[in-house]
């Protein structure tokens, strides 16, 4: 078993480096998600306001981030914008920014959808007891929207985490990029190393994403039970 491929993981600092890459991945995803979800909630609420110009602008924002592939967005922000605008940001920050803006766009649509599906009568009975617009959102609409939108939000979170695998394209040292380097450096000694390296990356993503996806499914089921019961 001297040349068994699994040993590629224990060669030198390979495993530590892989976990380091995973740390970068998680850090970018986590910061982008926190910023993106908060911004997305605000934008989603604004998208239910009657002001048409505001709604149009936010709609364009959403469509831009939804239609343009994430890879293109990353390249756009990493290569093109600095040249045109003269802003120079490290790759990790560009990645965080792109993911935060993308999350915000998707989240705004989830929040808007949940808010407008709260029955009209709820809004009216809120108004009938004298609530102003802010209070109506704060005490009546948003709490009801949250339980409607939570499963979709968790799905968005898992999608964002998965999509971080594109970060190597703008040379962020994320877990995929580190994995690639490990594979290339050890190719001679461990020809089957690629299988083990990507195998462990698979397990890492799975361990992070699967519980989230399970949680979303369970919550959706519970919500349906409540709605029908």
């Amino acid at each position, binding site marked *: 078993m001297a040349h068994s491929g699994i040993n590629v993981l224990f060669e030198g600092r390979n495993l530590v480096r892989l976990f380091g890459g995973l740390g970068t991945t998680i850090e970018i995803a986590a910061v982008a998600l926190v910023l993106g979800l908060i911004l997305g909630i605000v934008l989603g609420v604004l998208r239910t306001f009657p002001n048409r110009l505001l709604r149009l602008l936010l709609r364009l924002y959403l469509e831009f981030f939804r239609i343009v592939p994430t890879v293109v967005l990353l390249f756009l922000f990493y290569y093109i914008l600095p040249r045109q605008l003269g802003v120079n940001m490290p790759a990790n920050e560009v990645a965080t920014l792109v993911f935060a803006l993308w999350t915000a766009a998707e989240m705004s649509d989830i929040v808007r959808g949940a808010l407008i599906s709260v*029955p009209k009568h709820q809004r*009216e009975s809120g108004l*009938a007891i004298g*609530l102003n617009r802010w209070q109506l959102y704060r*005490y*009546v609409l948003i*709490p009801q929207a949250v339980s409607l939108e939570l499963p979709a939000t968790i799905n968005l979170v898992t999608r964002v985490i998965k999509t971080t695998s594109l970060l190597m394209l703008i040379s962020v040292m994320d877990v995929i990029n580190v994995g690639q380097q490990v594979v290339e450096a050890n190719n001679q000694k461990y020809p089957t190393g690629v299988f083990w390296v990507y195998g462990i990356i698979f397990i890492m993503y799975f361990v992070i994403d699967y519980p989230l996806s399970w949680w979303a499914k369970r919550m959706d089921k519970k919500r349906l039970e*409540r709605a029908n019961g």
Partner: protein
Amino acid sequence: MAKQILKVEHLEKSYRENHILHDINFSIDEGEVVALLGPSGSGKSTLIRCLNGLEPYQKGNVIFNGKPVVPTEKNWQKLRQQIGMVFQSYDLFPNLTVLDNILLGPVKVQHQSREAAKATAEKLLDQVGLREYENVYPRQLSGGQKQRIAIVRALALNPELMLFDEVTASLDPEMVRGVLNIISKLAQDSNMTMIVVTHEMNFAQQIADRVLFLEDGHILEQTDGTKFFVNPQTDRAKEFLESMDF
């Protein structure tokens, strides 16, 4: 003479091409109960919803306590504390307990202390016989119980005028009586001024001091409650009463 609470002058409402309310004029004095009757689609609900600004109108004036309402969202929002409304579909907030449903207005809108508001709320809950339900969520209540809570929620703001929009229309027949009794008691014991849209003719006859009969967005007649049911002034109202079995 009793104090005039609300007066409506030449109110006109249309929605796109549809002219829904035509030249509506009436007033209501303190302690009076007015029933809005008429066939479906006659504009009763639209009219009552105009009276607390949930429905915009194009012409005419609503005068509340002697002051014409400038119909901005902000003005209506203030007035809604004085003009309570209960809807057909009760619409308690499902995310809040019964007590929190009731306290939301007094505490957040009127800035009463939670203790004071709670004392009022509990007194009102006692009156409708639902004190022991204060900590449950609306989904655990029956339709009739929900509607009684919705009435308490509106009363907790201590309004001067109450609007009831077909409040028993979506209830089980056996729940109807309990809700109607509460409204009658409110009229008799608390001398509450109210405008009631209903299809329950017995109930209307029992509590209405005056009846406004609407058809196609016109007020066809305004008659004393006792007179209307025995001797309506218009043929249309006569037909309407004959078509209702009660």
